[in-house]
């Protein structure tokens, strides 16, 4: 796998440095402990601070969502590896304006444990922290006998809506409640056409034959739920939507935000082919697509594939979705 990198051990450092330079109007970067991407004007007086983070390789998640109306800081770990507590603690301190800090954590053992330690340390320094765990991936059985559902593309919507709540001045309790509500109403399912290769690895994270696809893929090149023969896009969309719709469940007359998310290596034209069928199925079911978002937002390096996310919304959540946002990767209303 050829990559546009220099030293494989420095891809995260250099990527963050480039990001910081390109978006100096929006963010600044703390390099020690490495790395914390902070909103340029943080801490914003009176505002609850929002911190998220996780392994790198999912860009623009999370650093691309730092800015007005969304995150106050993002903590990028090593490639596909949760960050350690030190930078998470640093981020928490940098964004605390006295109103407390919310940690938005994707449900992976490593992320949960490292954020947990950081929250304990922050508390010891007198910062009020609440944590919301995102686990929107319906590909994984949520039971006592697994690590629980993974946090995948739905994370973007949790960050957007909680970010809007914080921006309008909600209290920490209230922002955390918004985040939990969004998480409880958002469901995602993904698939891959091709694997990804972490820069330090000599081989891809998994292999697929020329006629195979992986259904229920995670965002770290973890193997998925099942491996099937390649099918037309419309059939694949049906396969992804079915478990999503059943799970919440989504019902007739529901209003939803529909997110079609590319895994990194998928051309936009294919995302719109997927979107077309998803919108068609939802229309058939009488579900109202109130808002749409199509793009590669929560990725796995150069993996080819797509995930579909549905968020059930009411007027309040829709208002938070529509609220102005100005980050490197998401901008509207301002």
């Amino acid at each position, binding site marked *: 796998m050829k990559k546009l990198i220099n030293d494989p051990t420095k891809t995260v450092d250099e990527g963050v440095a480039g990001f910081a330079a390109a978006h100096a109007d929006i963010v600044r970067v703390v390099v020690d402990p490495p790395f914390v991407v902070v909103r340029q004007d943080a801490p914003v007086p009176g505002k609850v601070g929002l911190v998220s983070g996780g*392994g790198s390789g999912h860009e623009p998640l999370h650093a691309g969502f730092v800015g007005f109306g969304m995150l106050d800081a993002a903590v990028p770990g*090593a490639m596909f590896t949760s960050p*350690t507590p030190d930078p998470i603690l640093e981020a928490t301190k940098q964004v605390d304006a006295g109103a407390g800090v919310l940690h938005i954590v994707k449900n992976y053992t490593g992320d949960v444990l490292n954020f*947990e330690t950081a929250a304990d340390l922050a508390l010891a320094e007198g910062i009020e922290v609440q944590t919301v765990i995102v686990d929107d991936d319906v*590909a994984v059985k949520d039971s006592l006998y697994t690590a629980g559902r993974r946090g995948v593309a739905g994370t973007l919507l949790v960050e957007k809506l909680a970010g809007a709540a914080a921006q309008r001045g909600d209290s920490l309790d209230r922002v955390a409640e918004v985040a939990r509500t969004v998480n409880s109403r958002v469901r995602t399912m993904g698939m891959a056409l091709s694997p990804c290769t972490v820069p330090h*690895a000599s081989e891809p994270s998994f292999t697929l034959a020329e006629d195979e696809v992986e259904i229920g893929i995670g965002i*770290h*090149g*973890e*193997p998925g739920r099942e491996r099937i023969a390649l099918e037309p896009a419309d059939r694949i969309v049906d396969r992804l939507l079915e478990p999503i719709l059943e799970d919440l469940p989504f019902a007739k007359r529901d209003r939803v935000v529909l997110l079609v998310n590319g895994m990194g290596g998928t051309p936009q034209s294919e995302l719109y082919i997927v979107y077309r069928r998803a919108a068609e199925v939802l229309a058939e079911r009488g579900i109202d697509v109130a808002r749409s978002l199509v793009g590669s937002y929560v990725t796995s390096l150069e993996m080819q594939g797509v995930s579909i996310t549905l968020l059930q919304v009411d007027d309040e959540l829709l208002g938070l979705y529509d609220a102005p946002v100005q980050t490197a990767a998401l901008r509207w209303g301002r």
Partner: protein
Amino acid sequence: MDGAGLDGAWTRRWIEAVAAEVARRKQELTALDRAIGDADHGENLDRGFRAVLGKLEALDDDATPGAVLKLVATTLISTVGGAAGPLYGTAFLKGSMAAGDRAALDAAALVEVLTAARDGIVARGKAEPGDKTMVDAWTPAVDAAAAAGDDVRAALQAAAAAAAEGAAATEPLVAHKGRASYLGERAVGHRDPGSESTSLMLRAAADTA
């Protein structure tokens, strides 16, 4: 090599041996993680133990076992990340607390240290034996050390052998914790990477004692 307890010099030797072994077997650990995880376990531990080596140099020559273990703990916590970082970090932290300021560890103290380490992992990760995690190497190792009598070196040998068996025994299991739990039946037939790195650490302990 005599009947004396395990002192700070041994602890240091042990950790250096772990670092060397992790560096040597990095690809292998990552390959295990590729099969049922996210292909970074070897990389993660190698990053951590390279950092530990750097810090060890600055430590006093006469540091106690507990002081060495504490340094390992804080360094792993702040450099490894992922699941293994906090779990091994907690293990070494609890182990160092159990070691206290003893100048050397006899067999009983060793069992206390190993038990505290294992309990720390369980308290953080909530895994039970049979969940296909590093706990499946730690638990038989603790039991074997406890049963080995009062020769600290024999206890370490017993722990290393039991950890190796425990790691091998994860292969037929379905995972209930960690990333491999997403796979259901597809995890069967693969060894848990964390149980293998635990086995590596305890083998290095026995070999350097």
